[in-house]
């Protein structure tokens, strides 16, 4: 049990955050908080995907996805996003080694990956809407199809967008030399999460 105990010596009261930011685990407090946030966010996605699964199972028919989407484009998007996760991981590594130039470059690459993904998604939405898909109607079959398309990809896209904004902030702060390696790592955790969620969306919504 001794390993669960941690030393505390700072007598200063003023900044409670910094004082408790020591950890019995290897994760520091902010990282632990980020993990919890990710857990809760993951469950929001689980609710949406669960609802989607319920609708698929109870619906008498469901449109053939390959007839509606260009799977090549979706695969490309997926590839871009996963690659951006790789560059993100390298950015974190660079930040930990104090290589600011590398960090900035890799973060930039990650941001560009995110933007490309969002661009593809915008194209997809435009295409879908152009063919007559709305929230409550679509030419391919049950209305739940387009409703879940917009809601799930929209909710995910919103996360990617938030991630891009977050990374941009981290990029600027790093440029000014005001972002710790820990900060880069936290943003990275969020970014990996957004990517992992996409893998689920890709699998359940586009492939299955």
């Amino acid at each position, binding site marked *: *049990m001794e390993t*669960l*105990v*941690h*030393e*505390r*010596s700072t*007598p200063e*009261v*003023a900044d*409670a*955050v910094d*004082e*408790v*930011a*020591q*950890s*019995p*685990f290897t994760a520091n*407090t902010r990282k*632990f*908080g980020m993990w*919890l*946030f990710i*857990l*809760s*966010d*993951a*469950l*929001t*996605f*689980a*609710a*949406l995907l*669960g*609802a989607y699964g*319920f*609708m698929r199972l*109870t*619906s008498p028919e469901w449109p053939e996805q390959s007839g509606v989407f260009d799977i090549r484009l979706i695969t490309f998007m997926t590839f871009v996003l996963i690659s951006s996760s790789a560059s993100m991981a390298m950015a974190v590594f660079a930040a930990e080694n104090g290589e600011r130039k590398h960090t900035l470059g890799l973060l930039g690459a990650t941001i560009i990956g995110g933007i490309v993904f969002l661009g593809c998604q915008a194209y997809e939405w435009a295409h879908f809407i152009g063919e007559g898909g*709305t*929230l*409550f109607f679509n030419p391919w079959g*049950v*209305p*739940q199809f387009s*409703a879940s398309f917009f*809601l799930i990809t929209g*909710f995910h896209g919103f996360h990617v967008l938030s991630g891009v904004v977050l990374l941009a902030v981290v990029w600027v702060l790093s440029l000014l030399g005001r972002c710790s390696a820990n900060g880069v790592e936290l943003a990275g955790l969020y970014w990996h999460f957004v990517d992992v969620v996409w893998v689920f969306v890709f699998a359940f919504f586009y492939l299955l």
Partner: protein
Amino acid sequence: MYLVETGSEHKAGFIRKYVFSTDHKIVGLQYFFTAFAMAIFGGLLSILMRLQLGWPSRMWPMLETIFPVGMAGGVMSPEFYLALQTMHGTIMAIFVLTALFTGAFGNYLIPLQIGARDMAFPLLNMLSYWVYLLSCIVLVLAFFVEGGAPISGWTAYAPLSAIPESGPGQAMGQNLWLVAIALFTVSSMMGVLNYITTIVQARTKGMTMSRVPLNIWGMLSASIISIMVFPVLLGAGVLLLADRIGGTSFFVPAGLVMGDKLIPHSGGHPLLWQHLFWFFGHPEVYIVIVPAMGIAAEIIATFIRKPVFGYRIMAGCWIAVVALSMVVWGHHMFVSGMNPFLGGFFALATLLITVPSAILVLCWVVSLYGARIQFTTPMLFALGFVSIFVTGGLGGFFLGSAWTDIQLHDTYFVVGHFHLTMAMSPLFAAFAGVYYWFPRISGRMMNERLGRVHFWISIAGAYAIFLTMHVMGVGGMLRHSYDTTQYDFLKHLQPLNVFVSFAAFALAASQLIFILNFLVSLFRGPRAEANPWKANTLEWAAPAPIPHGNWGAVTPEVHRWPYDYMVPDGGEDFLPQNAPAAVLENKRF
């Protein structure tokens, strides 16, 4: 009176000190008083409902002046009754009980009991309160918009909740309801993220997880449930909002006609809402009851004056409850048209989750056995908690078995059951907590005699009301019905309804004793000693009044678990967690 003292090194103004404060103690008190105000409001709504149920369609001309629409002509309209019921349930289950336990007690006690200086993320913690306050305001606003408050119940069953035309409060009122729930979810996420992180990361030296007070285990378990199920409610709310304003039909089936109008939606499933809601809704009852159990266990442990029985067992049971609470939701849906095989599974899982609950009760009873119990007011309320929890839980067996539930579903048996388990017993635990920690917070004692009177009237009232409801439920008295005298087969139950109404008024009135005691003691109560109950936990070791940052130069060091009572070396019969280790090295832990 001092509620909280800010450290002298801070020259913060009143606003920073008491309003926009990041001090967990202030945030906790803000949560407490807001939840308390909401409780009074929710209680008044139930009084109105009891007026109607006791004396259906009687004229109350005075009430017309307050509710010109809902009580037009002095007679309550059915829609107004449903609106009262929806708001009462929503307010009490979510905006009072959830906020009161993790929000108020959690905030105040977690850092103190684990020897931390504050929550891990104090700013987030402050925000959590303000978003909570906003959510309360938005919810109450629903009464004042066109059409009034929603009528679809605290469960917001679709399609009623999904179609704005389905009733007077279902347009703007239901929208506000949804926004309030979403805000509450966000606030709750910010809160529990803090509680879990703080408990895991910020324990003081020596405070291992096997030494934290039982209350901390309760808070931790409830917070873990929260962080897993509130997001699902949020997801469900997003879908419902899309149905309402985006024209989708996740929850609306085809061919629905409302008020001679064919609803254009098609292909959705009302059952989907029920699944999503109850995936949140059932664990929600444990979000309320588990911290209540923790508080009661803590108080029982103090007043039995001997080591509590089953510390590790209790912690284990709560962890089991966390896991099981998420797989039993279907027991609310036995008669919903869900697949009967699923019903069988959920009945089994429900019986399974009664096991940890029963073991917990057993731990408390064994702890009491042979103890020289000090029957203080907090102890009485803690014991009342146990009594009511057991009684209410027994009703759960009949509901949890799918075959008996078919008869009992949607009757007052269910209403009686969940008011005992989820309303009364947590309320008793909360009262126990207030009486117990009042001296710590205010530096004064509450009046014991008034406390006892409050206890005996409350427990008599609770049983009179809610046991009678069980009986009426077996007799077929319908839930959600605003005038059961319309049905011949229920007419003979009317005297019971009158009885319940009177008992409810008495119970409500007796709460004035508490309020009086609380307010007078706050200003005039006798000064409390530093550790009036002779308890071992750390919150009693903090300076009085407790400064911002809680501890002096160094946080206390912990040497043992919190329940070393009846120590055999003569002198005092208790040994605080932070007392130097030299004494009794070989005792326990």
